[in-house]
């Protein structure tokens, strides 16, 4: 993983990156959210994006999920173009990516189980039985094996978020995007969700891109931390290095404000 805007460029592994941003610029009106951004993520790595709000972290996840499109630049996932690309190509590339949202975004008209099986049945073409068996395993894994038939409104925020994680994983994505997944939770529910994610990080080889304000969690699961400011990566490195001995003054300021 490398970030060419960062002062030091570490770890230029020869393996092909799974995610590649090249000269990506994203503007909202006058505001440049991502500024000629280049970075890449190797397969299986867990990368945490930190930085003040408005620094472009969430935008990166949204671009990868095709919820927004860049104004300039190239984004590739597993050798397939996400941007620029034809709609069909983009759809194919997108199937390799799953996302968990800050607000869970479960479908309130479906049970927990149905939330998880809908896409595997309709998109991957699994039979309903297969999809349900797999969904039950996933619900078991996130500690909700007994809540298959619950509607989202009958679940706590933490439970909803765990269902949402299971739903994303059911599509067997290569990349999991986590967008401030605990920010909307009551404090006592945060740990349960983070435990599940820790488990996934340690027991699978899924690539994770994580935007979070939970610095302890970031330290725990990350292989690499990217510090963003004003649409650029200003510093990157191992969590040990970034959290204990950052080089940039801006990183130090940010960390002392949030830790």
């Amino acid at each position: 993983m490398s970030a060419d805007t960062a002062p030091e460029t570490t770890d230029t592994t020869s393996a092909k990156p799974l995610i590649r941003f090249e000269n990506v610029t994203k503007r909202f009106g006058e505001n440049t959210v991502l500024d000629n951004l280049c970075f890449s993520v190797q397969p299986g790595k867990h990368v945490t994006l930190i930085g003040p709000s408005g620094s472009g972290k969430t935008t990166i996840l949204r671009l990868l999920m095709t919820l927004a499109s860049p104004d300039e630049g190239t984004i590739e996932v597993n050798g397939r173009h996400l941007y620029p690309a034809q709609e069909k190509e983009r759809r194919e590339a997108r199937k390799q990516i799953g996302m968990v949202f800050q607000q869970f975004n479960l479908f309130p008209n479906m049970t927990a189980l149905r939330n998880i099986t809908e896409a595997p049945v309709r998109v991957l073409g699994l039979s309903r039985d297969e999809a349900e068996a797999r969904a039950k395993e996933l619900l078991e894994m996130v500690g909700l094996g007994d809540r298959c038939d619950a509607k989202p409104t009958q679940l706590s925020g933490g439970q909803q978020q765990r269902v949402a994680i299971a739903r994303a994983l059911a599509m067997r994505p290569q990349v999991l995007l986590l967008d401030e997944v605990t920010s909307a939770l009551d404090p006592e529910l945060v740990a349960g969700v983070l435990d599940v994610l820790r488990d996934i990080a340690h027991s699978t080889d899924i690539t994770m891109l994580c935007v979070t304000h939970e610095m302890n969690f970031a330290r725990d699961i990350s292989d690499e931390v990217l510090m963003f400011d004003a649409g650029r990566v200003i510093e990157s490195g191992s969590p040990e290095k970034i959290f204990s001995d950052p080089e940039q003054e801006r990183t130090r300021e940010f960390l002392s404000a949030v830790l």
Partner: protein
Amino acid sequence: MNWDWSAIADFMPRFWDGVLITLQILVLGSLISFTLGLVWAIGFRAPTRFIRWPVHAVTEFIRTTPLLVQLFFLYFVLPEWGVQFSALTTGTIAIGLHYSTYTAQVYRAGIDAVPVGQWEAATALSLPAHRTWIAVILPQAIRRITPALGNYVIAMLKDTPLLAAIGVLEMLQQARLESAQTFQYTEPLTLIGIAFILIAYPASLLVRALERRLVR
């Protein structure tokens, strides 16, 4: 003023014919307006303006011209171009079409009220557009708007007498024909007034019951 019960008895056969026609217009007109309204509403959100623009133009045109004018146009002008239906068919289509432009706005409001996160989750799961609509968006939208749609059914019921203008034998027209023969206006007109209440009131109760069930 003398109330003559025998006039009511004499009116009964015609009255029932009228009730059946009115109900038929109401049911079929509602189905047309619900279906077509949904088509318009999805058209409002089409990815290309080559669909959006004409849909807006057509629905605005229909919504801002009077139903009576549309009835006359469909019944008297279209046959000149070789398109001819019975008065009942024409009237039912006209009222359904007219009200579809109102239900379209209701659907639109319901669809707009579905949080954007729902669309995003559907995208994140790569759900195809038709599944996103059918499985995710519409069930949530329609829950919210069922009461509003129900109100348009009642409004439509009250507009069915307009079809008398092109000779459809709904309740009002039957009452007029009866009165023209017997010169007794009070009894038939009173009876159909009551009949409108008897149809509309249960319908509004049903709407309220649906509202309690669906909107929480």
